[in-house]
């Protein structure tokens, strides 16, 4: 059923159902071709109604049109990457001093001594942002980056944490942030999905596809995971052994049957919508493969992303794909790096993080530089982070446990003022203490940059107005001004 928009519309029994543009998109299949469909059916925005909706289009002028979310899955160590803690190295080998509020660590090594960071940190760019020697390429882009050192969340384990970073809740069942964005803003390209997911290690991401699921919202808002090979979107190609003429012949015969069927059932818009959905599917078959065809890119661009180097090739390819997708109007692209909790350095953080940083550093910097030189960074928001950070306390002698109490994420582009550091953790990087930003605040900030008020985007579910940040969270607006 279409979702009546809450707040303003009371049930009107036995009255003409008034569709808002959004209802029409739901019925007609938003994301994938919805706008075109609504338009073709002559059911474009209904004057007057659209204006009443609390969730139609942007609430204020956006600074970001698209989001690229670089998800470092498993939890990268903020204190070894962006948040240097000299005090930690001083106290290394000692137990956590009483002056720091103790925390629960999932692996339960409560009395483990503090572990020094072996990284050397330097200030970079004109802004002098601190970055460790693990990320030399990202360090070149700091003047475009706002480093947020004061993030915190509630998920102690990977499943909880990844779920909350995607949906706002540690419990399964809510729509992903990308779904909310698709619901709120629709797509700019009718022939591509609005919300796309790229995994560096397909099938391994903790929680699987529910991370990009639409939860209680219609399936049209769910993320589409692109798979490699000739068929980037599932079922996009005509089946093997069926030529284009036969496929067209089948579609023509199908539409003939469907039109005849609809002729005896006039004014039932759903039937028309399904007829049109087959035509859109046919058009998508033409457009989508081109979007993911990297052979169109120059050698120079490919090496910028590190595609010519074995270690960086996989993530580099995904970063380049992400640029091609936002270029074509895809709203929300989520890239997983380290799928399957590979950043989860409970032991040997040196070996683990060295390798993972190497894999993703150049591709990420390449993406930022490429977006910038094409003028795309202005309205593309790039977000970097994992589901949590890591503890200053050691685990198994040379690793670090999960730390959702204080960790770093960064944002760049899409209206974000680069070259600034926001918030702070305590002296050893355990708790966020200054300008604390909960995951809800981070989500609200992302939505804010996209022109969406997190409290104004509403979806009625079981009679309850549901909002992307669970009625909490506030956008950190100063991110645009510094």
């Amino acid at each position, binding site marked *: *059923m279409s*979702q009546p928009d809450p707040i303003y519309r009371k049930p009107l029994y*036995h009255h*003409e*159902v008034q569709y808002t543009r959004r209802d029409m998109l739901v019925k*007609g*299949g938003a*994301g*994938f*071709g919805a706008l075109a469909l609504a338009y073709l059916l002559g059911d474009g925005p209904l004057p007057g109604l659209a204006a009443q909706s609390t969730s139609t289009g942007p609430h204020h002028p956006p600074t970001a049109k698209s989001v690229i979310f670089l998800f470092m899955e498993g939890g990268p160590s903020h204190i070894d990457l962006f948040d240097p803690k000299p005090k930690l190295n001083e106290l290394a080998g000692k137990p956590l001093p009483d002056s720091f509020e103790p925390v629960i660590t999932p692996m339960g090594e409560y009395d483990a001594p503090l572990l020094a960071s072996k990284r050397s940190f330097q200030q970079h760019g004109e802004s002098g942002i601190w970055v460790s020697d693990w990320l030399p390429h990202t360090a070149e882009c700091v003047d475009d980056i706002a480093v947020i050192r004061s993030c915190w969340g509630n998920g102690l384990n990977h499943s909880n944490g990844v779920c909350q970073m995607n949906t706002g809740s540690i419990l*399964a*069942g809510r729509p992903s942030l990308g779904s909310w964005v698709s619901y709120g803003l629709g797509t700019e390209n009718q022939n591509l999905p609005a919300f796309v997911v790229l995994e560096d290690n397909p099938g391994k991401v903790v929680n*699987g*596809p*529910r991370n990009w*699921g639409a*939860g*209680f*919202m*219609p*399936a*049209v808002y769910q993320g*589409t995971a692109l798979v490699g090979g000739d068929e980037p*979107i*599932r*079922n*996009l190609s*005509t*089946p*093997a*052994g*069926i*030529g284009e*003429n*036969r*496929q067209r*012949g*089948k*579609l023509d*015969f*199908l539409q*003939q*049957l*469907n039109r*005849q*069927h*609809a002729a*005896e*059932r006039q*004014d*039932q818009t*759903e*039937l028309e919508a*399904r007829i049109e*959905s*087959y035509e*859109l*599917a046919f058009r*998508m078959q033409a457009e989508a493969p081109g979007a993911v065809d990297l052979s169109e890119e120059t050698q120079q661009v490919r090496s910028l992303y590190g595609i010519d180097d074995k270690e960086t090739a996989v993530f580099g390819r995904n970063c380049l794909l992400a640029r091609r997708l936002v270029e074509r109007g895809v709203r929300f692209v989520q890239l997983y790096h380290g799928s399957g909790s590979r950043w989860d350095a409970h032991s040997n953080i040196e070996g683990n993080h060295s390798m993972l940083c190497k894999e993703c550093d150049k591709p990420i910097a390449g993406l930022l530089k490429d977006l910038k030189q094409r003028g795309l960074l202005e309205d593309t928001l790039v977000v970097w982070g994992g589901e949590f950070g890591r503890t200053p306390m050691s685990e198994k002698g040379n690793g670090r446990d999960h730390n959702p109490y204080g960790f770093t994420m960064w944002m760049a582009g899409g209206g974000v003022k680069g070259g600034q550091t926001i918030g702070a953790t305590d002296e050893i990087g355990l708790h966020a203490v200054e300008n604390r930003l909960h995951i809800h605040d981070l989500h609200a900030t992302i939505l804010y940059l996209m022109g969406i008020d997190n409290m104004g985007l509403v979806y009625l579910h*079981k009679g309850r107005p549901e909002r992307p940040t669970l009625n909490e969270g506030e956008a950190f607006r100063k991110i645009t001004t510094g």
Partner: protein
Amino acid sequence: MHRLIMTSATYRQSALDKTETARLGDPDNRLLWRMNVRRLDAEQIRDAMFAVTGELKTTTGGASVATSQPRRTIYTKVLRNTRDPLLEAFDAPEGFASTNQRNVTTTPTQALLMINGDFTLARAKAFAKRLERERLTDEQLVSRAFQLVFARPPEPAEQAGAVEFLEQQSQRDLQNVSTTAGGDARAAALIDFCHVLLNSNEFLYVD
């Protein structure tokens, strides 16, 4: 209460147009002079396909099976983190929380899945085999297929259209036929015909 509603004359109407007067006077059906067409639920679509192709195992009870098995969907396993693509596309709930009202969406993703996906194609092949076993003439074959999929015989024009499709389709892309139906262009055309019927609105919607 449910009985009262569901046995009422209003609820038991069909979605077919009745009179021009009603249609012109109330095109949006706000006075409920007809039923609105209803798309089958995800489970119904899957079950109906197996039923039409003759593959459905009608045994009851027993251990749950994978969704690739021809049992009714109620007997299939539900893996919340790895959902069945067909059921997912047609709005089966996620299974994390109770759902008081399902979404009913119409998307190109569904169209792609139905026209290109392995599942529907496999059903079309099974359906074609079923028809072939019955050794019918083209006309009889079309009638039988309509009866199975739409529960009605074809109109003469529909019958002619379908026979024409079978003829034309067996002339198309002959070089590709070998991989789908062992080189038999006629058999390939029959699979295509079955595939189209399973994709049709008349199959996916009830009046």
